[in-house]
């Protein structure tokens, strides 16, 4: 185990560190013990970092600590070297339960992030651009209830991206989608996230689905224990676009499972 898990290489220079947590710990109000302690996490430029761990290790809470939607009990979050002290649209969260406002059309949902930050015409242009990026051209005027779960999650992603964030946090974004929709969106998400048409520099994904994690992530942090800590890290060194048919794909899954202390099931 490495206390400072991400090795410093020529590519991963300190000046490319986008989001970093130092000694992050969290205890719920009135709880007797910490949910997790001493989380040191780094997300470098153009990297997708995944966090995995059993239920109850506080992965979703950790994401909210990183976005400062829930302030950590102790520790620091740095965004491009500067401390984060309040929620900001520069660190944008996509929820597990897909959250769209039912009284707003797809376009209005996306424009919401821009209210008060630019004039309406410019906001409409930017929102339309993001809806194009997530593949929702032509359904701008549809209400959420007229859309599938996959389309709604695209609206939520577009709403996050249009706010010009540097970091996108995704809390099990595909868990409520059917497998076909999830697979399709999973295939597209990396292209969407690291598309030059948006401002993102890094993304962090929480997931229980190890196939998803190996499919998408550059680095994986494994959390376990009580209170939880980072017990292992992996660098996923597979070429993109990735396929489950690649021979090493299941090696990574087995290694992460071993880290989680879960016996892999034979196919």
């Amino acid at each position, binding site marked *: 185990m490495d206390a400072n898990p991400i090795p410093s290489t020529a590519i991963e220079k300190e000046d490319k560190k986008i989001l970093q947590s130092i000694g992050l710990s969290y205890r719920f109000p009135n709880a007797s013990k910490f949910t997790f302690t001493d989380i040191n996490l780094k997300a470098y430029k153009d990297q997708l970092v995944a966090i995995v761990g059993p239920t109850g290790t506080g992965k979703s809470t950790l994401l*909210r600590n990183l*976005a400062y*939607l829930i302030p950590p009990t102790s520790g620091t979050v740095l965004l491009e070297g500067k401390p984060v002290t309040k*929620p*900001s*649209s520069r*660190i*944008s*969260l996509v*929820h*597990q*339960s*897909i*959250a*769209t*406002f*039912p*009284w*707003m059309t797809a376009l209005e949902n996306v424009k*919401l*992030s821009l*209210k*008060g930050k630019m004039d309406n015409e410019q906001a409409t242009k930017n929102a339309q651009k993001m809806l194009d990026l997530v593949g929702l051209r032509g359904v701008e005027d549809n209400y*959420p*209830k007229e859309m599938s*779960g996959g389309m*709604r*999650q695209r609206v939520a992603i577009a*709403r996050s991206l249009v*706010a010009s964030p540097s970091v996108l946090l995704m809390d099990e974004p595909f868990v*409520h*989608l*059917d497998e076909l929709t999830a697979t399709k969106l999973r295939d597209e998400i990396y292209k969407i996230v690291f598309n030059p048409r948006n401002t993102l520099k890094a993304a962090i994904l929480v997931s229980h689905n190890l196939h998803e994690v190996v499919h998408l992530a550059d680095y994986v942090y494994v959390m376990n224990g009580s209170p939880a800590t980072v017990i292992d890290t992996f660098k996923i060194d597979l070429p993109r676009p990735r396929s489950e048919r690649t021979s090493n794909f299941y090696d990574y899954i087995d290694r992460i499972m071993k880290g989680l202390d879960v016996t892999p099931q034979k196919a």
Partner: protein
Amino acid sequence: MDISIIALATLATVLRILALIAVSIVLGWGLAYLSIKSRTFENAYIPLVNAFESIPVIGFLPIVLVAFISGVGGPLGVELAADFLVFDAVVWNIWIGIYQAFKTVPEPLLEVADNYKFGIWRRLKDLYIPHSLPRITSNLFSSFADGLFYISVSEIFTVGVKTYQTFGIGTTIAVFLQQGNLLGVYYSLAFVAAAVIIVTLTFSRLSKRAIAKYGLNTDLPIRRYHSTIRKYIYSTWRNMSRENIVSRFGSRFRNKKRVRYSEREQEPNYLGAVLKYSVYFLLAVIAVYLLFWVYATVTSVSGSEWSSFFSETPFLIYAMGVDYLRVAVIALASAFLAITLGYYLAVHKKASTMLTPIIQIIGAFPAPTYFPLIFIATLPFLASALPFEYTEVYIFILGFLSCFYYVLFDFWIGVQAIPSEFWEVMRNHELGFFTRMRYIILPAAFPYLITGLSSTINSAWAGIAIAEYWPNIYGTHSLIANIGMMKFISVNLAEGNIAAAAYISLIFAVVVIIYGLLFTRSLMDLARKKYVVEEGIYAG
């Protein structure tokens, strides 16, 4: 002044209201059951309840006078009249709440009841009634507040030269005020305050317990009793409701002995028919009785009097317009307070823990009981500062105190019901207060806001009805509006012109029902179609 009389009068009033709430609940179970079993009955019952709910208690006063004071007569007639008015104040939201609860019993639970061939009695006892308890207990507070609000109207009223009164704290306070006995008023208010606090806290505990035990998917823990006596009562109740399928849904499938028991013990279905036709019969008797007295009243009025009523109708409509303006101002002020204070309470847990019981107690405390004290204290100042408008100020104050908390509590509950994900989106995207309000909070809480505003408007009518005509509010002082439909009803009643009061009440009822159908219902439909906050979270 005898303190024990004040205590007894408070007890009489509180027991009268609680007993009538109990009657409302029992009748509500029967009527709601009929509604879910008979579409014809439902189609008549729900619009009628909605219509009656929107008519302020004072609108029923002419019917009460005709049916009970003239019809039954004597002390029993006065007591029945008071009971009817309190019943009218407490019953509607309880009946609607029970109906909604019966309509929303989860399908799997109904299937369990079908599987075990439950008869009407077991369906009610083990399924419908337990499922309705959270809604009933949450409505108890507002029903009690409504019932208490009318004590100054229901327990004592004057028709012509005769004053009718029944024993209660409303009558006691009115007598003290007429005598100028302020100390008596203070003592009475102290007893009312104590009763309000005790009842409010009891209802609050009952509501939490009912939600914890009978609510579906609730996070509230079920609290268990510890003291010996309470344990005994609790165990007796548990034994009585041992087969409660709402709380024991899961164990049904595991416990074969109980399954056999439940299969063996089937209720005969004719009980349902007996209940159904008993209620129909009771309703028919009431309708015939009322129709008879309406007929007697109509025929007792000469043709020339009727034509005089008709000729005054345009002026009455104008007076009603003035009243609507008053109600609109009160409703707007209440909505403003609700949106600001309700939002503050919803986002500041510490403040809400501290302020909630205080606001609840202020809400339940009947404004007409302490309003004369506000009147006495402020009259010299207001009458000189606003010599022409001060009556309007008092009408506004009493109207506002009568109703502001409905929309406040509803909006507050609506804001609390906004999913945590929405709050995170607002904070994550650094949305300002007005953007949050306009685009998220007001739309999300819209259904609650409409429900609260509807109750607020109904209660505002009650407040202005009392404030527009209050002779001898304190000693020789009176509060009388220049113009207003509520004033005309009260003046005609006071002068013994029951037919005229009934005619004005009828016009009022028709307009209120049309308003309810056109305005309230269309807004509620909009809320149900577009502003359903639960649809904003997709967790397929």
